[in-house]
């Protein structure tokens, strides 16, 4: 693996042929690791050319080079050494360890640049750093590794996209996800499915990723203009190298389990507690709660179900919901090439069974790329990534559907434990003749579904995806330094989605079996033409870029659903059902286009003074005709003080010091293709056609959302050993495209109008420090720490709009605060005298919840006088965006062992722990052990929960959220620990194996947090509106704990 990467870099050097006029020599020698063994596969390059060689198994090499040339000796992980030949024919070289490579290549928009001369803020993560991680997708690999990039894994379900935010939230309504660019092609990300929930970026195999570079400031991202406001993530995949074919295998196998579950009551305590609540309400628990229903199991409202063997039914519903999942991934790759043609081919297979029953993801894919130097002025190549994947699940709690009846995390918690999963008599999944669980031994019917039934009868969603990301380029070099490039990229995605609901139990019951189907394609085409000219005038180096680009995206999807199944063997759309209907929302045709001009000037003087100017002009079809075009751009400059003479006295300490600053304006286009159009839709009224107003838009004025970004910082290398990078950033987003909510009574479709209104700032610092505190022959310790702070503030909303209430009514967004504040009704706890919940009214009046009385809310000082619910007003209860986050990695090496530990942390935010409310609801739902132990029992109790009153959903936060459940979201997580062993394969030549490494990894081992819910990262909303309704954990799933064992082998 190590060698391959190195050669890759070599292959990326500009290939231009230079005629050697000087005297040539045959040079040979040996390359060894400082104080150590010979290096196999080290690269020797003749500087300024593409010619080079690789060391053999004994570390020896030979090369033909001009006597006045210079050789570069490289090996990944070791410091590159430069040796002028000066007529020598034998050059032996020792390469020393370097933890920090100042000279690495950074991928920037439409090209690459040496890290030395970069003026912008770019976070780079090499594929090497996450190669051992069982990362299901590229985004997850970034967690804790890149400063300024926050990754939130919404829960432990497989196949979902994490929430990625670069330097905070820069938009309110139009998306906060960065733009992803794979090998120069902007690709679709996020959920691609209509019915299910998938992650479009998971189609790129993490093992094929060479590096990920995140463009954070405007100077870096400006070349992506209107799409860059949320940052740009550039993914570079592995390429071939000049060498004989090298075959690699990497793979891992592992298990996954839920990180935590909330302890719920067993049947005995459940029955006791529920009967108490019935007594508290009606004076006796000897009654049926349903008119006309008599329980065969006893005369109380809730009863135990005694089995023939004398034991009682006591169901742990979590057992039917959670499991230990098996996951494995394999990648085989071949790479190689000649000086003229390089290739890389790989195939991968992933199979992940989740920790949730029926959660499954599998992927089979391949990557191929070839680059050919067709003539001395023409270079051609293509890059192909083809994948098929299937994401399936029975749990319908994904996509934030926390109240779905088949939301597994919720039913695991609330189903009555005195009802069996399987009928003790028939052995079939237990349920009633109305498609729900039914009464069991109780006298209230549970309409919820039996998870064992819907799993056994085949309910679930399944998204089959075929994805081809391909790009084709031709590069012409008409004269030295000038490169003309045309590149066509096609991102094609076919999604075939299905949901099946069986006829016996659950969602399919009332229509005797249903199946929904949505099938469609999205095709995004990018065609870019660029001219790049690099030249030097003395020590002044220039790099110019000009180009033009077209982008077009089409969605073409149809959908239908069927009901009334013929045979219960059927579980697919194509089978026989009695009825077929159009699936209205799924039927869709959309098109959008973007047309752009772009340009860049990079200048440096001896890599001491650096300047970069970027420009892009974009036209976007989705905006109003009057404001379709926007200009974006940025400028950045850097000064390497350490190269100055006056710095000399300090240069023993600061081996390298560069200060830099940037400013620019970028935009955001993440809006619907017809956001600026008002239109009518057609449909049927009975048997007749009908047209109706379905969208009202700000057709005249909708324009670009723009983000002005300022960045200042420095990068320093201290004593060759410590790297420090610091940035201050300030982003000012204006003309934010807002879905401004309107009063329901205005009758506007969607109850919102999309318009430009609002402004927001994000300010913070990023600091990353890397060092190698210990280094001996046998032992080394590399450590890297990063922290990002962010202060988000909404500064303005639309004219006449003072606040935006999140769609779930848990959040508020208003000027002067960070986006998505919790907006919660204030509780003053439980009245010790009466056991009633105290809520604070708008005038400070104390109200108490007396659920059994009709008005529910009464004055505390006069419990016969109702208190209006509307007067129990919400208050701002804390920001939901973390104010700081980061990671800390430690890599230890002892002889052949290596140990890597990644901590990741985040904090400063508040979470509404809504699952507490779910677990303390006094309907038939089960309750938490915590509730059982801390509810109000006797006068004088300082209780956490109110006196149990049957049916009460108001006292403990189900009706509306209460301030008692607002908690801090700070956490420190041991994200991963990897222990590896690398075999010394230098003498294994006969076996054909050139590299072998085995490792074991544990993910999410523990999380230090004061948060009492399942996980401070587990939140409800993972969609685009996440920021407006963030910080709410209501019936969310736990995270996944993963243990894996893996191997990397090269031949």
């Amino acid at each position, binding site marked *: 693996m190590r060698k391959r990467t190195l050669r890759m870099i070599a292959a990326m050097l500009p290939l231009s042929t230079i005629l050697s006029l000087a005297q040539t020599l045959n040079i040979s020698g040996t390359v060894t690791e400082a104080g150590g063994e010979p290096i196999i596969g080290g690269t020797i390059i003749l500087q300024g050319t593409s010619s080079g060689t690789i060391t053999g198994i004994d570390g020896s090499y030979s090369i033909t080079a001009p006597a006045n040339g210079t050789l570069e000796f490289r090996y990944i992980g070791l410091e590159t050494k430069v040796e002028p030949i000066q007529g020598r024919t034998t050059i032996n070289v020792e390469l020393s360890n370097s933890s920090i490579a100042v000279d690495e290549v950074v991928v920037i928009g439409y090209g690459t640049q040496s890290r030395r001369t970069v003026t912008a803020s770019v976070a780079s993560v090499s594929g090497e750093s996450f190669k051992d991680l069982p990362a299901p997708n590229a985004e997850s690999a970034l967690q804790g590794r890149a400063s300024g990039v926050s990754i939130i894994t919404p829960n432990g379900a497989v196949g979902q996209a994490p929430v990625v935010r670069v330097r905070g939230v820069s938009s309110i309504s139009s998306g906060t996800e960065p733009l992803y660019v794979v090998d120069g092609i902007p690709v679709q990300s996020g959920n691609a499915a209509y019915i299910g929930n998938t992650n479009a970026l998971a189609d790129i195999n993490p093992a094929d990723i060479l590096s990920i570079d995140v463009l954070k400031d405007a100077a870096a991202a400006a070349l992506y203009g209107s799409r860059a406001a949320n940052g740009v993530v550039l993914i570079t995949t592995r390429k071939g190298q000049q060498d004989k074919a090298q075959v690699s295998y990497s793979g891992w196998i592992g298990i996954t389990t839920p990180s935590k579950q909330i302890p719920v009551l067993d049947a005995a305590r459940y029955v006791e507690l529920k009967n108490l609540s019935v007594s508290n309400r009606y004076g006796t628990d000897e009654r049926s709660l349903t008119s006309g229903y008599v329980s065969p199991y006893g005369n109380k409202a809730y009863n135990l179900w005694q089995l023939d063997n004398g034991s009682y039914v006591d169901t742990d519903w979590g057992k039917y919901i959670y499991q230990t999942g098996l996951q494995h991934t394999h990648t085989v790759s071949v790479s190689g090439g000649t000086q003229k043609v390089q290739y890389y081919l790989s195939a991968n297979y992933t199979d992940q069974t989740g920790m949730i029953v029926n959660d499954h993801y599998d992927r089979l894919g391949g990557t191929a790329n070839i680059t050919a130097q067709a003539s001395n002025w023409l270079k051609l190549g293509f890059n192909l990534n083809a994948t098929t994947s299937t994401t399936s699940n029975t749990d319908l709690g994904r996509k934030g559907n926390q109240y779905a009846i088949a939301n597994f995390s919720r039913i695991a918690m609330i189903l009555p434990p005195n009802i069996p999963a399987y009928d003790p008599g028939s052995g079939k999944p237990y349920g009633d003749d109305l498609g729900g669980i039914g009464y069991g031994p109780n006298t209230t019917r549970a309409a919820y579904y039996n998870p064992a039934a819907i799993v056994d009868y085949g309910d679930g969603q399944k998204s089959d995806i075929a994805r081809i990301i391909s790009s084709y380029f031709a590069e012409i070099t008409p004269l030295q330094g000038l490169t003309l490039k045309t590149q066509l990229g096609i991102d094609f995605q076919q999604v075939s989605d299905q949901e099946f609901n069986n006829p016996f139990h659950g969602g399919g019951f009332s229509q005797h079996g249903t199946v929904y189907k949505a099938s469609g394609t999205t095709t995004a085409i990018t065609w870019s033409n660029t001219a790049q000219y690099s030249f030097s005038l003395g020590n002044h180096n220039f790099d110019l870029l000009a180009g033009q680009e077209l982008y077009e995206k089409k969605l073409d999807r149809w959908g239908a659903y069927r009901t009334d199944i013929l045979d219960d063997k059927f579980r697919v759309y194509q089978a026989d059902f009695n009825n077929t209907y159009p699936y209205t929302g799924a039927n869709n045709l959309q098109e959008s286009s973007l047309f752009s001009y772009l340009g860049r000037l990079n200048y440096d003087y001896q890599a001491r003074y650096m300047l970069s100017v970027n420009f892009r002009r974009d036209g976007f079809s989705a905006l109003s005709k009057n404001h379709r075009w926007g200009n974006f751009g940025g400028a950045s400059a850097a000064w390497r003080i350490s190269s100055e003479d006056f710095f000399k006295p300090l240069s023993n300490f600061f081996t390298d010091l560069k200060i830099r600053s940037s400013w620019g304006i970028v935009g955001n286009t993440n809006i619907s293709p017809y956001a600026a159009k008002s*239109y009518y*839709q057609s449909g049927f009224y009975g048997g007749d056609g009908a047209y109706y107003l379905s969208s009202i838009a700000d057709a005249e004025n909708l324009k670009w959302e723009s983000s002005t970004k300022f960045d200042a910082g420095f990068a320093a290398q201290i004593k060759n050993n410590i790297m420090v990078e610091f940035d201050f950033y300030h982003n000012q987003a204006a003309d934010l495209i807002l879905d401004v909510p309107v009063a329901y009574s205005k009758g506007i479709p969607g109850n919102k109008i999309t318009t430009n209104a609002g402004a927001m700032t994000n300010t913070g610092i990023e600091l990353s420090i890397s060092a190698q505190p210990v280094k001996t022959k046998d032992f080394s310790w590399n450590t890297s720490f990063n922290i990002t702070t962010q202060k988000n503030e909404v500064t303005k909303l639309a004219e006449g709009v003072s606040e935006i209430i999140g769609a779930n009514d848990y959040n508020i967004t208003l000027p002067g605060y960070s986006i998505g504040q919790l907006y919660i009704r204030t509780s003053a706890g439980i009245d010790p005298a009466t056991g009633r919940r105290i809520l604070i009214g708008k005038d400070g009046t104390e109200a108490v919840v007396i659920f059994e009385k009709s008005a529910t809310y009464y004055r505390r000082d006069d419990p016969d006088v109702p208190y209006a619910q509307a007067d129990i007003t919400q208050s701002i209860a804390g920001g939901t965006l973390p104010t700081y986050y980061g990671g800390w990695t430690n890599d230890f090496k002892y002889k052949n062992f290596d140990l890597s530990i990644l901590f990741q942390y985040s904090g400063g935010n508040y979470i509404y722990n809504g699952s507490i409310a779910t677990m303390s609801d006094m309907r038939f739902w089960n309750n938490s052990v915590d509730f059982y132990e801390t509810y109000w029992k006797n006068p004088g109790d300082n209780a956490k929960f109110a006196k149990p009153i049957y049916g009460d959903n108001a006292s403990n936060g189900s009706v509306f959220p209460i301030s008692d459940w607002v908690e801090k979201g700070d956490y420190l997580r041991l994200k991963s620990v990897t222990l590896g062993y690398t075999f010394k394969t230098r003498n294994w030549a006969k076996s054909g194996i050139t590299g072998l490494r085995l490792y074991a990894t544990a993910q999410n081992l523990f999380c230090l947090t004061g948060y009492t819910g399942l996980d401070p990262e587990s939140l409800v909303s993972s969609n685009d509106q996440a920021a407006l309704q963030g910080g709410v954990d209501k019936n969310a799933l736990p995270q996944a704990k993963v243990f894996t064992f893996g191997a990397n082998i090269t031949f």
Partner: protein
Amino acid sequence: MNKMFLYSLFLLSITIFSSCEDFLEKEPPLYFTENEVFSDPNRLEAAVNGLYLGIKSQYALGGKVFVIVDNIGDDFINVANNGYELTFTYDMKVTLDRQESYELWRYTYLAINRCNTFLKNIEANREAAGANYDRYVAEAKFVRALGYYYLHQIYTMPYVINPNAKSVVLRLDAEGSLENNNLARSSSTEVLDQILQDLSASDALPTGVGTEEFIVRATQAAAEALRQRIYLVKGEWDNAIASGSKITGYTLADDIVSIFRAPYITSEHIFSLPFDATNRPGGQYATGYYYIGGKSNHIDVVAGIVSIPGYGNPKDARIAGLTNINDGGKFLAKYTNSTYIDWLPIFRYAEVLLNSAEAHFNKGEEAQALALLKQVRTRSLAPADDELNLDGLTGNALKTAIINERRLELLGEGVRGLDILRRGETFYKQPGTDYQLIVEPEKGINGYIWPIPQFERSNNKLIED
């Protein structure tokens, strides 16, 4: 060669540059602009259908309204034990945040704004409307009036208790901007007067009986039937009687069961919402979902109307044909189509007769009242089989008979709950049982009527209780 390639590349670029404005023109292929709809007479006609389609939303009159009203009422028991299936409505605990309330509010106002927008746009497109202009305007106003009627009844304290009670907000102009979020509630009188004013355009509506086109769209009779309901709400008995007598040409269907079975077209239907495979409500919203197989609602056979002697007669066609009580069950069988495409009768002639009977009674015209009542009763139950003898009933006994007849005749048709509210009566649900629920008008928004939903309050700061 080299240069040729270069030149062609740049030539290509120039071609693209020149056509980029076209490249950026993307019109939605599945949608229509306002102009496309309003300038074409055929589309305009279909846009009127779109107004009915609006009020036919599954969240409003085309799905949940009937079951909401009947769960408010006292003839059914909600056994769903599920907030999504109107448990809170039945328990009279609809709070600010309840889904059934904010959905009803939201989608009824969406339908109203579509009418308002239509009324605005048609002014600029009179030519396309041609001779139908007056009719279209009258239809839009009819749909608006229908929407306001249901909102008024559910969110307003009874007019008979307080004619100036705070009612809903009256939106009469097309809304399409961010302005005007704040609007105070109008009084009950103002809302009812507005409904009557909208219905005053009804002369432009067509007349006709017994065909689909005169059932699924407004006729003069449909407007009159709504007007009659308003007069009952206001206690204007003369007007109610006059309205009833203006509804002519309709007769009771021979068999009441035929009202609820395909093709849903009889001489009794005045106005119904049609359904078809392409436009049907989803589960948990469909009226039929609640009743088929007793999924969520059972007929209260212990304390409801069918428990009252004379109203559970096994020979009564309404018991025999429209419930499964004779088989020992308690399910309503008015809606039976498992795909939920049973049409919903909003106004039918039997109700008009019973409305008139009530009005006559309240005027002291007991003979007329009794005659109308018997007309409805004998259609379903032959006098020979009837254990009750209605002849000679007077005073409160007659009043009770009229009310009881309505309860049985219109069982499950979204009427009973509104009747209790309009009369300002106390709700007695499952009286005399362990499950007895008594809600007096004094409870106001704490159980008697619904409070204006939180989502309205969040953006309309002028809402007051």
